[in-house]
């Protein structure tokens, strides 16, 4: 692994190929690597296979733009700013996308198993639900269970041999080509410090063969190494780094900026139809680069989102009514 890990936003997107299996940092509408998502849309990537602990606004952007072929996860929406994933919903209806449903804990345990190098995890979650209905094995129905990125079974049903705990399901480890992570700080050698909840980022990184970290700031490695017990991901787990301030916008970042709720509401409201999505993408993505995107947003908007240093969130953000 090279010691010069810096790449550009464009290079980051180029590492991700048509058909790549991907996962991301963050949680629903927080710390999503939006600047790279936009660049993937500009580069017209297709056939992506997303495996996510949970989806969010970034999923809706990629799905709406036609980049995604398979989505394995448990949830998509914009929280308070858009109750469900209208783009995913539309493409499920038209069968333009394969959706494989697991529960949230099952997805998390799939990533934990993958991160630990184990082939699966045993859990008692979601027993008795249609998540486990063998008819609803969508990747199996599509004949895609090759035992590589896609495991040979969606679930295996078994019993606990050790403590008579009863029924269990085995959930297959998550295995992905590339993890794209968006955080507050990364050191020059790749050490990551996440402030606040780290969600499922450490596991996302370890399930991946290649990790790209986009940070608000690249800091001297030595600064982070003074307090190793406050760091989240070791440098040797990271292949590429880039600095991209406000790179998570319109999603939020603990201690830096809030979710841009108005932006997400606008996206949700306008992208129920494909025409609406295309129009939104023409306005905010195509023909832009990250700097012109930020310029279009304008400083007053971004200052309103900026987190109060003592609180770690903005005291000026209008959360917006129902």
């Amino acid at each position, binding site marked *: 692994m090279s010691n010069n890990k810096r790449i550009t936003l464009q290079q980051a997107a180029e590492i991700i190929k048509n058909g790549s299996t991907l996962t991301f940092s*963050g*949680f*629903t*509408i*927080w710390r999503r690597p939006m600047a790279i998502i936009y660049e993937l849309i500009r580069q017209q990537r297709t056939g992506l296979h997303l495996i996510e602990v*949970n989806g969010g606004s970034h999923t809706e952007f990629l799905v709406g733009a036609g980049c995604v072929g398979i989505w394995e*996860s*448990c*949830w998509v929406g914009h*929280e*308070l*700013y858009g109750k*469900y*994933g209208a783009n*995913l*919903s539309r493409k*499920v*209806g038209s069968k333009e996308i394969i959706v494989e*449903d*697991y*529960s*949230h*804990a099952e997805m*998390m*345990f799939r*990533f934990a198993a993958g991160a630990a190098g184990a082939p699966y995890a045993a*859990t*008692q*979650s*979601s*027993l*008795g*639900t*249609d*998540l*486990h209905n063998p008819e*609803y094995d969508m990747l199996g129905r599509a004949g895609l269970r090759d035992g590589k990125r896609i495991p040979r079974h969606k679930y295996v*049903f078994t019993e*606990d041999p050790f*403590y*008579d*705990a*009863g*029924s269990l399901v085995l959930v297959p480890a998550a295995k992905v080509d590339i993890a794209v992570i968006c955080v507050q700080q990364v050191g020059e050698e790749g050490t990551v410090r996440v402030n*606040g*909840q*780290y*969600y*499922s*980022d450490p*596991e996302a990184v370890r399930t991946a063969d290649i990790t790209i970290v986009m940070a608000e700031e690249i800091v001297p490695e030595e600064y982070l190494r003074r307090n190793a017990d406050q760091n989240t991901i070791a440098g040797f787990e990271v292949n590429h780094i880039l600095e991209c301030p406000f790179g998570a916008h319109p999603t*939020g970042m603990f*201690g830096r900026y809030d*979710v841009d*709720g108005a932006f997400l509401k606008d996206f949700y409201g306008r992208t129920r139809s494909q025409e609406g999505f295309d129009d939104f993408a023409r306005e905010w993505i195509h023909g832009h680069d990250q700097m012109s995107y930020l310029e279009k947003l304008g400083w007053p908007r971004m200052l309103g989102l900026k987190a109060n240093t003592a609180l*770690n*969130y903005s005291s000026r953000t209008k*959360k917006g*009514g*129902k």
Partner: protein
Amino acid sequence: MSDYALPEEYGLADLLCCAASREVQENEIVFAGTGLPMVAIMLAQKTHAPNLKLIFEAGTLDGRPPELPTSVGDARCEMGASRSSGLYDAFSIAQRGYVDLGFLGGAEVDQYGNVNTTCIGDYLNPELRLTGSGGNPDINSFAGRTVFIMVHEKRRFVENVSYITSPGWRVKKWPGGEFVHRRELYGAAFRGGPSAVISTAGVFRFDEESGLMYLDTCHPGKNPEEIRGMCRFDLDISRVKGETEVPTREELRIIHEVLDPDGIFIPRVNKA
């Protein structure tokens, strides 16, 4: 005596919020989602359950948000928390059995308390794809009790949901899919199940042996027969205790002055 509010002083959201709040017991560990459930939990914290502990799915343990978060990933969740971590911690804690109570929602519920948040219509050819499960089945699988808060429409209270996202008292045993009692399937992980559905019409509970839903209380202005008519299954109304306890003025003050002053989750009544 509690200082109950008059009908014109509160709205339906207030009633639901207070009913939900009363499901929380002191010292409990509560797995919290955002929106109305969080207002209800924080209301309990400021009234009868000051030592309840909140767990947020995104990884915050015993957070004390000073204002309402917009999602469990929100920085607001983490203020004053005992530990900020990640989802693996949150779900491990849940599976390990620390959680007493979870608050959840759903698009459809059936007579056994099975809930659907995945799709309307046939899963393979859905009329409408919804958000998906999120942590709904997980919290429900692992908590001692779960409370569902739902809009009451006849199409939402059905004999069998079109997709069981979250397990009720009688669930499907795979690979065959025959219905069995939850206790039978969950084995050592059995800790309880849905303990209440709070709808916009009334409060419903479950017979833990038969697994069937029954009407517990009617919201003011509703009667049992009317509520039975709002279900697509034969709702048991033989055990009705009376009317749902209404909000107190103190509860309303906390909701609208302290917890949700902007009326984001719970609008102020405007019955002038």
